[in-house]
């Protein structure tokens, strides 16, 4: 089910709120879990079995990790069992075909006979949000092992945490430690509910008014054939994609955080105006914060972080970013996207705080950062390396030579698209983000956000259905 669909807004959400608040306190978690399984099973009911499997394994591992008198070796073993099982599930559904085709490529590179990828692997359907909930579920065992959290009171509580529908399929990735105390006791206040619905409404409006129109531009630009994409159109398309992915993903996070609030939860923030960043290092403190925090705490720091040599720090940065890239999808494009970010993070660390680069005017640094992010987005958005290289070629003048190029440009640079692009650019670079707007809840932003929801529903009826981008990860 998608937050911006009729079935969710007009049926599921009111019913979920009614059932949740009508249930006795002791039954609220089972009710929420049941609702979350319906929400997730709406795509494909079989996928819920996978989520249940992940939940059972991690709960069982958690029991072993925290069992009284358990030796360190046993605790460590079960943490690794949890990590291993979750990564194995992810590997099968997300990476098996990619791994097989890469292995085949390597074999043929060294003169061997290429091995055909088994047909069933290329037909495996990626369960929605698998990357999110496996990471979340895994964090339980790790947090228990590290002593950052106490075990869930019951399997029901843990199942509720793993399946929480507001952030289940596209984050924020809520580590167990973040909500452990809330699972046991959380306040349900009318003010918290009002704040939640305001956040949800603003996120909904952001998705409809900004993300969807930008998606139309980006889709048209990236679908262009060889020679049909001119330089200006290529830059316009990738900038539109940059705005689309930011507004789409941050809108989902806003809606998730808002929905969480309505059910009494406080989820971590996921975005903080990333395009205002003055460096890639800063960008990663503002972009998909829950993923970068997860990778920092569970990968970068265990690898040694910046505590070892300079060289090792650069290697660690690169490793984390490449794995972060692969987390998004099984494709060399995502590896390249991660490599660009990892490489630039290492470069910024190498340059240091006193370098010319670090002391350049803010506008220059913001522009350079956005430029690097844009180039990296090409690899992220393009379906494969051929499309990415064709697109980059068009951005730098090797494109637009086909007679159809002016036709594509004319359909891209329409008054409506230029207007929505301008508004998106202003919102991304100059306006406060949703959490800043709602830092203080006033009657104006409470009712203003609901009116925006009403207006965006009308626009949704006009635009038609548009799924969220991050569902595919």
């Amino acid at each position: 089910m998608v937050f911006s669909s009729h079935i969710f807004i007009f049926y599921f959400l009111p019913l979920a709120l009614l059932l949740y608040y009508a249930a006795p306190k002791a039954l609220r978690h089972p009710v929420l879990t049941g609702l979350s399984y319906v929400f997730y099973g709406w795509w494909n009911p079989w996928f819920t079995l996978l989520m249940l499997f992940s939940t059972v394994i991690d709960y069982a591992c958690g029991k072993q990790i925290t069992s009284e008198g358990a030796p360190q070796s046993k605790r460590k073993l079960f943490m690794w069992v949890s990590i291993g099982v979750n990564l194995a599930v992810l590997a099968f559904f997300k990476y098996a075909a990619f791994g097989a085709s890469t292995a085949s490529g390597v074999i043929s590179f060294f003169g061997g006979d290429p091995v055909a990828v088994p047909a069933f692997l290329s037909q495996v359907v990626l369960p929605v949000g698998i990357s999110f909930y496996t990471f979340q579920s895994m964090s339980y065992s790790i947090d228990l092992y590290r002593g950052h959290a106490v075990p869930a009171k019951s399997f029901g509580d843990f199942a509720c945490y793993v399946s929480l529908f507001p952030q289940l399929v596209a984050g924020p990735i809520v580590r167990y430690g973040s909500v452990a105390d809330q699972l046991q006791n959380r306040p349900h206040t009318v003010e918290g509910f009002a704040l939640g619905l305001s956040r949800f409404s603003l996120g909904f409006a952001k998705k409809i008014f900004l993300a969807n129109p930008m998606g139309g531009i980006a889709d048209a630009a990236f679908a262009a054939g060889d020679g049909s994409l001119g330089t200006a159109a290529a830059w316009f398309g990738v900038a539109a994609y940059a705005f689309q992915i930011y507004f789409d993903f941050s809108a989902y996070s806003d809606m998730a955080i808002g929905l969480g609030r309505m059910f009494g939860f406080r989820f971590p923030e996921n975005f903080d105006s990333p395009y205002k960043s003055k460096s890639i290092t800063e960008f990663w403190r503002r972009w998909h914060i829950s993923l970068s925090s997860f990778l920092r705490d569970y990968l970068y720091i265990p690898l040694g972080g910046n505590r070892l040599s300079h060289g090792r720090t650069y290697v660690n940065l690169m490793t984390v970013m490449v794995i972060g890239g692969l987390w998004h999808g099984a494709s060399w494009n995502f590896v390249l996207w991660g490599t660009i970010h990892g490489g630039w993070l290492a470069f910024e660390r190498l340059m240091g705080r006193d370098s010319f680069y670090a002391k350049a005017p803010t506008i220059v640094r913001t522009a350079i950062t956005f430029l690097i992010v844009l180039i990296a987005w090409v690899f992220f958005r393009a379906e494969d390396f051929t499309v990415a290289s064709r697109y980059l070629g068009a951005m730098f003048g090797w494109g637009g030579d086909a007679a159809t190029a002016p036709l594509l440009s004319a359909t891209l640079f329409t008054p409506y698209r230029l207007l929505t692009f301008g508004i998106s650019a202003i919102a991304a670079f100059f306006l406060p983000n949703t959490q800043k707007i709602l830092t203080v809840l006033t009657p104006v932003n409470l009712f203003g956000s609901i009116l925006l929801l009403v207006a965006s529903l009308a626009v949704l009826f006009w635009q038609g259905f548009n799924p969220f981008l991050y569902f595919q990860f």
Partner: protein
Amino acid sequence: MAMKNPYEDEKDLSEIRVSPTICWAGIIFFLLVCCVPPIFRNFTAEKTAAVIFKNKSKLPFTQHLRAAEKTIEDAPFTIPPRKALQKLATSILQEGNSKTIIGKGGFLFLRPGVEALTGTGPIQPPPLGPASDPSLKKAHGPAPAIKQFAADLKERGIRLLLVPIPIKPTIYPEKIADLTAPLTHPDAAAFYADLDIEILDLTDAFIAAKNHRQVYLKQDTHWTPETMQVAAKVVAAELAEFKGDTEYTLTSVKRSHIGDLVKKLEIEEHFKEEEVTLQVVSGKTRDTKSPILLLGDSFVNIFGDPAIGFGDGSEDRINAGFAEHLAAALKRPIDVIAKNGDASTGVRQDFGKRPDNEVRAKKAVIWLIAARDLFYPPKLAAENNVSWSNVSWSSHSKEETQETPGILTIEATLKRAAAYADPSQVVYPSSTYETEWETSEGEVYRVKLWAFKKSKRVPTGKLEIGKTYRLKLVPEETVPAAASAQSASLEGDPYFGDTYFSELVE
């Protein structure tokens, strides 16, 4: 005792400066926004929410959920805001929607058609990534199916003439962009050369015609009657050896209509009807025994099929379409299989279902198809219901004396039904779908039924699998409107038996 959140950077910094009363007011407002539309719809009109729990078509569960969701999204309360916003977008910003592009000088264009010209086309590898639909990865372009069809016809001694119809933006690019020369997909020439079959490109004829008259209807995807007649003459000239001696007379009639592209904008009331002069051809123009077979799509039907074009209010076919004018230009009746939006596969498959001796009696097949269908990359093709399958040919022959099936009335149970397209997502306003029925004596019938007409689902499109109905069956070819409509076919092994049509199911 639970531990507090150990992650310092996840602290909640929000502050509430609203009284509980104001908060309650906001919550009630929000809940009304979410609850009023479904309550209004389910308690005053139709019980839409119930569709989730009733899988009448016995679809696989996930498909049923998607279909139920679609029913819920087609709520009447969405129409007024949609129309109002479209009117605003069109009048102030000259913006169309996902199907229609607003061009210059009152010209409208089919957006997928423009995207077919600027997209990856039929030769370049289509953009498919790890998140792409696995079924698209299996899809192949048009070339293999076209080459196989040509080879099959050649083996049967039949000449194939492929006639790709240049689409509106090819002839009128200046109505969208600052372009003067006609344009097609950059890979079109290479693609046609690779097919290595006889191809008649109408672009030059249309460009020449553009100097004298309007080539395409302003508000519609299709050509004008005059251009259609030019095309008929050009095609007839290619088939000079088949010319007969039947004389036809033409009568002019004026008709007007709101174009399909306006209908997709859903603001018909803001456009004037477009008037055309049709040349109605008198005499017998169609004959299933003709050695010449025309395969085609809505370009063939636009001035003959009142469901999509310029009718007089009745459902009677007008003898003013491409087939009639081709017959007039050839001076002989021709055989026709033309289905709206289904020239890629449906018409070929219908031909393949015919008895082998009837197929082999043909001397030439003229295959008229909108060029955009040839240029769609897999994703766009799937979105526009264009597929490229090979033809399964019937091996059975039919004796001259064998009777064609007559009118039948049966009582039977609906066993299977083809899934048909969403009326709001396709260009054409009507569609049939194939069903399979079994009588209590175990006799099995294939029956086509109307799925939707005038873009609205009709009662025959809402039958329940497993239920028994009474049907009046007629041979499919006796209902021209159904024969020319887009049709959804049952999946599975090819079927070579008689297919009936039923207008009425009780």
